[in-house]
């Protein structure tokens, strides 16, 4: 039972990461569309934000792995 619950927890973490990074990607696309000359700035910041969100999601995966 703990194993299945752990897997469900990891899946929920994946949902959270997906929503977060999807929103960042979407808003980055909007920003690039509004101001195409800022592409590299926006891209850099998008990657940083994505890495930070993934860090939080992987917290949850690590807890699920331990369980």
């Amino acid at each position: 039972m703990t194993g299945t619950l752990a897997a469900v927890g990891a899946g929920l973490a994946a949902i959270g990461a997906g929503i977060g990074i999807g929103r960042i990607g979407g808003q980055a696309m909007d920003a690039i569309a509004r101001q195409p000359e800022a592409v590299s700035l926006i891209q850099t910041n998008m990657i940083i934000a994505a890495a930070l969100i993934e860090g939080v999601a992987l917290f949850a995966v690590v807890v699920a792995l331990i369980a």
Partner: protein
Amino acid sequence: MNLVPVFSKQLFFALLLSLVITNYVMASDHPGQKENAANEKFAAGEFIIDHIKDSHEWHILTKNNGEAVAVYLPVILYSQNTGLHFFISNKIAHGQHFNSFKISEETGKIIEINENGEEIGIPLDFSITKTVAAMLLAALTILFLFIRMGRSYSHNKNIVPKGFNGFLEPMIVFIRDEIAIPNIGHHKYERFMPYLLTAFFFILINNIMGLIPFFPFGANVTGNIAVTLVLALITFIITQISGTKDHWKHIFATPGVPVWLLPIMIPVELMGLFSKPFALMIRLFANITAGHIIVLSLVSLIFIFKALWVSAVSIPMVLFIDILEILVAFLQAYVFTLLSALFIGLAAKEHHHA
């Protein structure tokens, strides 16, 4: 990150092809189950955990008759009862005991036993395990590359760097211009450049080495939480040492906070102080370990189904994930260095209160 690729298209495709081929080689190197029981299920979980965990031997392959080809690494123990011991790990490799030491079945660590086989203690383990050996190899690689680079710069002044130096120089300049100076400020950044460069290249080289599937690479160094703990700890120590008086004032006597709130604010600020390096540690560990587990699971698919056609599906997926992992390797090194520079900059900042 504007990393201009120096290699041509042919080299890129040769690299892809070699990745595919080594994946096939890796997938065909575990025929241990073939002889004994063709109907035995493949223990995928055990296979994956064995490749993620540290171990006292570097297992290369298992021959058809079940015999293992491995490099047995030295074991260095200090026991309270009997002092320093040094031997090669093939003496305790397959459950046998040597000089009253053996590998415990429950925990997988080395324990000390008496004549009846009961455990009497746990020695301090300073062995060169797989992770340590791989880390030393990465350290030697970095030393070799960068000492050669430094020397070539001091010999040929004012010449545009070519070849490998031309590959590394934009990365070093990038770390200085985009990570160190914006976060730490152009007065103080030079003191911290050596640490930031070391952290970046150490993490990068170890990440990349963990992805190459054959000996002597392929050890899970940055996916070991002890390694990332030490990296985060060093960042934490450097941050605190370079903290100004303003930094400590913000933690213990946050300006603008009434005195009666301080008993709540101080623990909260202290937690915030420790949670940042903790996040650094977990982020790197989890990203790299998750990547390795995904690659190993996709390769295990072939052995779970025990059919050759599965490899036609699984190997392209493994290839895709491998390329993604190379991106993650660079990204995690970059994020670790960026956040370290950010924390150092925040601590070392001189506040000009208006």
